[in-house]
C-alpha cells in the first residue's frame, strides 16, 4: 500500500516538474562516479561541475547521476533522466558496456547521446540506432595506431601484450593487433590480468619468456603500473608502452621509479603546456586545465576530465544551431540537436579536433593523441 502511495506521489511530482520545464536546455549525465570505474566517473563529474550554466543567453541545466559502474543502473538512470527530467541530450556513461546498454533506451526516446566511453563499437557500425550516438573519448584505434607507428619507427619487430581482462583490455587487444600487423610487428605473447590481482608474476614471466622487443600494457589508472613494476623487477630491458587509460597521477605515484622511460599514448591535453603552439588543442586546454587543478588539486587533471569537458564544447557549438529550429524539450529540438552535433566540423577541444559526419560519430583523428615518455615521475611530450 505504502508503495502505491509512494508511486502516486512520485508521479505527481513528475508531472509538476514537467510543467516547469520550458526554455531550459536540459543535459542528463550518468557517470561511473563509484564502483570499479570510479576514477573515470569522478574526472567527468568534476569537469561537469566547472561548466557554466549558460551558452550565450540560453540557460543550460546539467543533471549528473551516479550509476556505480553498473549496466542496469546506467539504463535506469537513462530512463529516469529522459522520462522524469525530459532531458534534451544524454551524456555517459564512463565504460563501454554501460554506454552500449544505453543505446536502446535513447534510441527509443530519440534523445541524442554523447558517450564518454572509448570503445569503437559504441558508434560503429553506423545504423539507425547509432545514428543518435556520439562520443568524445578517442577510439582506442586512434591510440593504438599511435603506439604501433611509434614502435615501428623504433625498429621494434616483436611485441608482447599484458592487458586488463575487461572490455578495456579486450578492445585494446583487438585494435592493437590490427595496427601491429599493418606495421609489421609480430605479437608474440598475449596475457591478461585483472584490476584486483595482487600478483602478476605469472603473466610477466610468460610474456618475458617469449622475448619480445617491446611490451604493451593495457590497463587503467594505478593497476596499470603493476605489470610495469614487475617487468622491471624481473629485469626486462625492452621498451614498455602504456595506454591512455593509465595516464593518472596515481599511476605515477604507485609505479614510482620503475616507470621511468616508459611510453604512453595519450590525449594531447595531458601535456598541453609542452605542446607546440601550432597544436589546436593547446589553447583550449590552457584555459581549462589551470582552472580545474585550482579547484581539484594539483595533478588532478586527467584525460577523463578533458573528454567530459569536451561534451560542453560540443554542446556550446550545437545548441545555438538547434535552438533556431525548435523549442528545447520537444522531439523536434532533440532531432535538431542531433543534426547540429553531426554537423560540427573542425572544433578544437581537449581530446583533439572534432569533425563529425553521418558516418563518423567519433569525430577524432590522429590529432587526438600524442606519445609521451615518463621521465622521473613526469609526462614528457615526445615529438617523435
Amino acid at each position: 500500500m505504502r508503495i502505491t502511495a509512494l508511486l502516486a506521489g512520485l508521479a505527481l511530482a513528475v508531472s509538476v516538474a514537467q510543467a516547469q520545464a520550458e526554455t531550459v536546455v536540459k543535459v542528463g549525465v550518468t557517470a561511473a562516479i563509484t564502483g570499479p570505474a570510479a576514477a573515470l566517473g569522478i574526472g567527468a563529474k568534476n569537469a561537469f561541475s566547472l561548466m557554466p550554466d549558460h551558452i550565450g543567453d540560453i540557460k543550460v541545466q546539467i543533471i549528473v547521476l551516479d550509476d556505480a559502474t553498473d549496466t542496469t543502473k546506467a539504463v535506469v538512470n537513462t530512463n529516469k533522466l529522459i522520462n522524469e527530467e525530459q532531458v534534451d541530450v544524454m551524456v555517459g556513461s564512463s565504460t563501454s558496456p554501460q554506454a552500449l546498454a544505453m543505446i536502446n533506451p535513447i534510441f527509443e526516446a530519440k534523445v541524442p547521446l554523447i558517450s564518454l566511453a572509448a570503445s569503437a563499437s559504441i558508434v560503429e557500425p553506423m545504423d539507425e540506432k547509432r545514428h543518435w550516438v556520439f562520443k568524445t573519448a578517442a577510439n582506442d584505434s586512434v591510440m593504438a595506431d599511435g603506439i604501433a607507428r611509434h614502435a615501428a619507427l623504433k625498429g621494434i619487430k616483436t611485441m608482447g601484450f599484458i592487458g586488463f581482462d575487461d572490455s578495456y583490455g579486450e578492445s585494446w587487444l583487438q585494435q592493437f593487433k590490427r595496427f601491429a600487423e599493418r606495421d609489421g610487428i609480430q605479437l608474440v605473447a598475449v596475457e591478461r590480468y585483472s584490476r584486483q590481482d595482487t600478483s602478476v608474476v605469472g603473466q610477466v614471466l610468460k610474456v618475458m619468456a617469449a622475448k619480445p622487443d617491446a611490451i604493451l600494457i593495457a590497463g587503467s589508472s594505478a593497476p596499470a603500473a603493476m605489470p610495469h613494476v614487475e617487468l622491471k623487477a624481473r629485469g626486462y630491458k625492452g621498451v614498455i608502452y602504456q595506454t591512455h587509460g593509465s595516464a593518472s597521477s596515481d599511476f605515477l605515484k604507485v609505479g614510482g621509479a620503475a616507470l621511468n622511460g616508459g611510453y604512453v599514448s595519450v590525449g594531447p591535453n595531458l601535456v598541453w603546456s609542452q605542446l607546440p603552439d601550432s597544436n589546436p588543442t593547446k589553447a583550449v586546454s590552457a584555459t581549462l586545465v589551470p582552472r580545474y587543478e585550482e579547484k581539484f588539486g594539483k595533478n588532478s587533471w586527467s584525460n577523463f576530465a578533458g573528454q567530459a569537458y569536451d561534451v560542453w564544447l560540443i554542446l556550446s557549438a550545437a545548441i545555438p544551431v538547434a535552438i533556431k529550429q525548435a523549442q528545447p524539450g520537444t522531439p523536434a529540438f532533440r532531432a535538431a540537436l542531433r543534426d547540429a552535433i553531426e554537423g560540427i566540423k573542425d572544433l578544437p577541444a581537449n581530446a583533439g579536433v572534432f569533425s563529425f559526419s553521418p558516418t563518423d560519430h567519433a569525430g577524432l583523428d590522429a590529432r587526438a593523441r600524442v606519445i609521451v615518455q615518463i621521465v622521473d615521475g613526469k609526462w614528457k611530450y615526445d615529438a617523435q
Partner: protein
Amino acid sequence: MTSDIILFLIQDGIANGAIYALLGLAIVLVFAVTRIIMVPQGIFISYAALSLSWLESNLVPPTAWLLLALGLLTAGIECWQARRRPRAMRAPLVKYVVLPAALLGLCWLLAPQDLPQMARMALALALVVPFGPIMYRLAFQPVAGASPLVLLLISVAVFIALTSLGLVIFGPEGVRTAPIATASFTLGVLDLSAQSLWVVGMTALLMVLLYLFFGRTIAGKALHATAVNRIGAKLVGIETNAAGGLAFTLAAAIGALSGILISPITTIYYDTGFLMGLKGFIAAIIGGLLSYPLTVISALVIGIIESFSSFSASLYKEVIVFSLILPVLLLRSLGRRDIGEDEQ
C-alpha cells in the same frame, strides 16, 4: 616452462599463499568460536594498508576518525544498556572512547613527524585492530544466538557497509607502501626480496604464536573451550561475548598485519581485501572450517595453483581457483552417510 620459471612461480605462489593462510586462520578461528563466517575479513587488509599509506604521506588516517565515531556509538549503546548502573559505564567508556581518542591524538601528534617505518606500521595496526571488537559488539553480539543463516547475512551486510565506507574515506585509488626491508638475496636463480621473506616469516611466526596462545594461555584455552563446546564453556563461566570479542580482535589483528605485510609488494585498494579474503575462505572451507594445519596447507596450494594458472591460463585464473572447492566438497560429501544436521 623452464625449471627457472617453475621456481619463480612457486615462490610467488607461496608469498601469496602465506597471506591466504593468515586470512584462512582468522576465518577458522572466528567460525570456531562464534559460528560466524567472517566475510569482512579482507576489510582489515585494506584499512590497515591504506592507513599506513596515509601516515607515510604525513596525514592523519581517516580510520582514526572513523574509529572514534564508531567507538562513541558503541559506548553510547553500552551506556544506555547500563543506564541504571553508572559504575558499569566506566569500562566501555575507556575501551570505546578514551582509547580511540588517544589513538587519534597520537596520530595527530605523530603523523607530521618523520617516523621510522616500524613505528608507522605499529600505529596503523593499533588503529585497525579495535575495529574487530567494535564490529563484533555492534553487529553480532546483539544476535549471538541467532541461526547461522542470519549471522551469515549480517556478516555480508557488514562487509558491504565497510567496503563502501572504505571507498568514501580512502577514495578509489590504490596505494603501495614503503617496504620494511629493501634488500634482496640470490638463491640459485631466485631473487628473494627481503619483503617476501618477511611475509613468509611473519606468517610462520604468527602461526607459532597462535599455537602457543591456544595451548598455553588462559584466554587461548578459554577460546578453544568455547570453540569446542559453547554451552559447556558458558557453564564453566567463560563469557561467550568476551570470547567473541576476543576472536574478532585476533581476526582484525591478523588481517591488519597481512595488509601491512603485503602493501609494499602489491597495490592495495579499498576493496582489495575481498578477493584475498575469499581465497583465505576457500582455504578455510577446504580445511573444513576446523583444521588450522589443513587450512594453511590448502592456502599455500591455492597460492601456487593461482600462480601457475596466471602463467598458463591467465584469463581463467579465478575460475580455476574458485572451482577448486568443488572436488574437495564432493569428496567430503561422498565421505558422509548422514543427511546434514538440523540447524536452529
